[in-house]
């Protein structure tokens, strides 16, 4: 049989998901993707992050290279104009034709612009694609006031974007309330109240009659009630309409209210044509959320395999943060079902509104609305999706959590079919399978099942399920640091802090057993350094340090060391460069520029270290802590001082940051960078904490790293002034130092932090735990007690004794250290070279 030709029209989130499914099946098919937008699929759900500084590439879900690698032919920037069903081919607007055996329509939808006279004016835009966002941004730069037409989910997100762009933002809604689809009247009112308090103007019950020239602004909107509103720009976000025109012209069945009619295999009225996502109409309904779209893509893709899946509609419950306000909607939120009974809780002081709609017998949850507090969402959703019988007093589900209050639905009560992660459709059953298959940590489960790697909304629920299942298998998740301490690193940190413990002997006597080992000793040494910042080679600490810390240098494979002086921000004077060259030459050291913008000198014997450092300290160098689990470098680009594009002095800021945190001991190494503009030449987004300059200040990115498992840093806060930036970094670093596991980078720490980056924001920005003052004080203490360890060491004759190669033979060298020359410098001899050299000399 000839290879089947599959043509996929549309490369949005759902279209791409379909292609990904087919790639995953590894079928013998030829896939062609045709996308009207100029770029491959991107994440439309997080589109508004574009305004917070995210670049189009960062929103991308795939790349041309990926498609190429997988043998997928991709054609972007050209839309399909006609479907020739008899000839089984499609023809694009540019006139290119592609023949198909199976055609998949994933053309999505377009924003509905109400037919208002004047709505076609230049200052009237829509909110759907990256190009739309670019246009909004450009228009906003010329505007003071902006109006969003449409008070739904997208409209409010757009209003938030306008507000963040510095505009006075208004929302104009035709209906009596905001988010009328998802919220009941009470919820909608509470949402309005909260949004208005944030400075967004809300106008409901407003039908726009016409848009004319404005007086104070460029435009004026005249409403049916004869009132008017002046504005500089208007964004329409009044719902979506399916792109079904091409299908309609081809004679496929179209639903009365639009959308290509599909069956539960997502097949259209032509059995060789499928439709998925927002262009499809299933059961007289268009699913405008991404998760149902993904389910449709999966069902359609499976039709090419023996194991055909079906799409039976999807739950439209949703939880989100709009302008920082938590909003949740589950099932029948309006309580429209016959005989249903409602419970409502409203607290106008805290601005919280909750409602549940239950069946007449009070046994089943039919729907819910949550505004201002979504803590109960996960539990309610599980009751709803799994038909779990409600407790005797259903109102306890939403009443404030006072003692003896609401029963939390434990992970044990969930059936195996319960969906834990709706983004990736991961059930409790698949998590249980993953655990049975050998996964035994939250991180393992996440990478095996993809659970909680989408929107992250299920992270707390996932953790409770994983913990419960592991425990049920008798896997005591042993968090002991090692055999000597039945505590986590975090526990030990707090024990030392509260108990004022300053030495390992004291710690062992009070909280441990045995003599300690290579795991607990360096961990304790690091904790003592973070807390008390003593000289790390002081007598009680010296035996605790890893060899690199013991000799303040990095041991290489042959037992020699490398030397890395600090070059803050990568800035160095010619004189200092000359000193490095002279020292390297004198001690015959191999020199290499590191990725962190400093210079590494290799091949120093242990006895040479103090001699080398004496010269470096005299020339004004300080230790670079390359040997420590501590701050390494703060990389920088040249910034506004020299660069044509720079908007802030990135070098100055990098030097300040590096000097502030140098010497800070932490659970693992810390790297940072500062870029002077969004071109990001310093690669700050690959660092534990990265700073990128904006016109108005600095954007702070947290918890990235390169290495074996690279992770992009998350945007944490935007447009900070110098003082706030440093304050946040102080708090972040100390919070990490306090709470991370041993040898846990910030990226893994964040992945394991319940609540993720949002929780981190609450701790660091909102001071949810009330510890910020303490964190800052602790950081100031560390900064205030900094010493250059090498300076202290070279000035102390007792310390210098430890650097003797042989305690009894001062003039002898380690005969096993043998160098050969390569490219004009030394390197350790290989085993073979070593044998040859020894044979020759014998």
């Amino acid at each position: 049989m000839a290879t089947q030709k599959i043509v996929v029209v549309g490369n949005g989130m759902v279209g791409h998901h379909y292609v990904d499914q087919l790639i995953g099946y590894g079928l013998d098919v030829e896939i062609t993707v045709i996308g009207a937008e100029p770029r491959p699929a991107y994440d439309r759900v997080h589109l508004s992050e574009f305004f917070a500084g995210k670049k189009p590439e960062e929103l991308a879900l795939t790349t041309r290279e990926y498609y190429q690698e997988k043998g997928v032919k991709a054609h972007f920037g050209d839309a399909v104009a006609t479907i020739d069903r008899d000839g089984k081919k499609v023809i694009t607007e540019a006139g290119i034709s592609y023949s198909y055996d199976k055609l998949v329509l994933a053309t999505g939808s377009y924003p509905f612009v109400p037919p208002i006279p004047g709505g076609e004016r230049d200052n009237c835009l829509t909110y759907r694609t990256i190009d739309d966002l670019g246009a909004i941004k450009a228009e906003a730069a010329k505007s003071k006031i902006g109006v969003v037409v449409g008070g739904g989910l997208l409209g409010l997100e757009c209003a938030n974007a306008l507000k963040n762009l510095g505009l006075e933002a208004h929302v104009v809604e035709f209906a009596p309330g905001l988010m009328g689809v998802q919220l009941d009247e009470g919820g909608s009112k509470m949402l309005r109240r909260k949004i208005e308090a944030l400075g967004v103007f809300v106008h409901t019950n407003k039908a726009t009659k016409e848009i004319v020239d404005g007086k104070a602004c460029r435009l004026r909107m005249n409403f049916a009630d004869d009132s008017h509103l002046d504005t500089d720009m208007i964004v329409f976000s009044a719902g979506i309409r399916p792109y079904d025109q091409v299908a309609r012209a081809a004679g496929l069945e179209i639903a009365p209210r639009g959308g290509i009619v599909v069956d539960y295999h997502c097949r259209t009225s032509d059995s060789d044509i499928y439709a998925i996502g927002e262009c499809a109409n299933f059961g007289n309904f268009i699913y405008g959320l991404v998760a149902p779209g993904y389910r449709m893509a999966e069902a359609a893709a499976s039709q090419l395999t023996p194991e055909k899946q079906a799409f039976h509609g999807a739950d439209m419950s949703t939880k989100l943060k709009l302008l920082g306000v938590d909003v949740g909607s589950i099932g029948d939120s309006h309580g429209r079902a016959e005989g249903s009974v409602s419970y409502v809780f409203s607290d106008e002081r805290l601005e919280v509104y909750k409602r549940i709609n239950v069946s007449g017998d009070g046994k089943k949850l039919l729907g819910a609305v949550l505004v201002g507090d979504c803590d109960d969402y996960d539990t309610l959703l599980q009751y709803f999706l799994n038909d779990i019988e409600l407790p005797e007093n259903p109102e306890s589900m939403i009443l404030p959590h006072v003692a003896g209050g609401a029963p939390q639905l434990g992970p044990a009560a969930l059936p195996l079919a319960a969906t834990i992660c709706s983004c990736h459709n991961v059930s409790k059953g698949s998590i249980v399978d993953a655990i049975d298959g050998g996964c035994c940590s939250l991180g393992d489960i996440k990478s095996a099942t993809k659970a909680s790697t989408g929107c992250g909304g299920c992270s707390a629920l996932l953790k409770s399920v994983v913990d419960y299942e592991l425990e049920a298998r008798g896997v005591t998740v042993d968090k002991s640091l090692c055999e000597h301490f039945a505590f986590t690193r975090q526990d030990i940190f707090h024990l030392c802090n509260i108990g004022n413990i300053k030495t390992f002997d004291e710690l062992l006597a009070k909280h441990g057993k045995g003599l300690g080992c290579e795991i607990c000793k360096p961990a304790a040494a690091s904790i003592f350094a973070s807390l008390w910042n003593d000289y790390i080679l002081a007598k009680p600490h010296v035996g605790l340090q890893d060899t690199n810390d013991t000799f303040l240098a990095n041991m290489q494979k042959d037992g020699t060391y490398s030397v890395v002086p600090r070059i803050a921000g990568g800035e160095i004077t010619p004189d200092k460069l000359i000193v490095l060259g002279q020292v390297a030459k004198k001690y015959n050291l191999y020199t290499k520029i590191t990725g962190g913008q400093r210079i590494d000198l290799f091949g120093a014997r242990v006895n040479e270290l103090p001699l080398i450092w004496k010269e470096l300290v005299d020339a004004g160098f300080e230790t670079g802590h390359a040997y420590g689990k501590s701050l390494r470098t703060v990389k920088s680009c040249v910034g506004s001082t020299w660069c044509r594009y720079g908007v802030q002095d990135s070098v100055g800021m990098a030097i300040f940051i590096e000097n502030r945190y140098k010497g800070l001991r932490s659970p693992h190494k810390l790297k940072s960078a500062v870029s002077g503009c969004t071109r990001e030449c310093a690669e700050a987004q690959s660092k534990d904490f990265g700073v990128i300059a904006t016109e108005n200040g600095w954007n702070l990115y947290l918890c990235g790293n390169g290495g074996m498992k690279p992770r992009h840093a998350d945007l944490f806060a935007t447009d900070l002034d110098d003082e706030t930036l440093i304050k946040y970094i102080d708090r972040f670093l100390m919070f990490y130092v306090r709470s991370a596991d041993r040898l846990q980078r910030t990226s893994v720490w964040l992945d394991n932090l319940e609540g993720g980056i949002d929780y981190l924001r609450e701790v660091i920005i909102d001071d949810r735990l009330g510890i910020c003052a303490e964190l800052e004080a602790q950081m100031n203490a560390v900064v205030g007690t900094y010493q250059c360890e090498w300076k202290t060491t070279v000035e102390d004759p007792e310390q210098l004794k430890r650097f003797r190669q042989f305690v009894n033979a001062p003039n002898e060298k380690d005969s096993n250290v043998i160098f050969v020359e390569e490219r004009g410098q030394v390197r350790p001899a290989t085993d073979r070279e070593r044998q040859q050299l020894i044979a020759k000399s014998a």
Partner: protein
Amino acid sequence: MKALKANKWQSVCTVSDLVSGSGICALVNGQQVAIFSVPPSAGDKTALYAIGNWDPIGKANVLSRGIVADIGGVITLASPLYKQHYNLATGQCLEDHSVSVPVYEVALDGDTVVIGV
């Protein structure tokens, strides 16, 4: 106290050269010897151990620069290169039983540290 079997002893340094809880290296008859001073635990006296300085797995003279580690009650030395443990009393590698390092007798003669040869 164990009986001393060595016929000859060579002095290498004084007590003040030892680093409590850590190691130093001496050259004894051309051999590199790593000497460790392990601080007392629960009533014991400070114990001295001496093993070869050559790490047969990492292939470098580095064992004197490792960390003294108590593994299930056995006093060992964790290699600074790849962290294998060597029993300080017998020289046996805990991770690979086919590997061991030489052990030397070590004692104090007054304030002088001596190695059996």
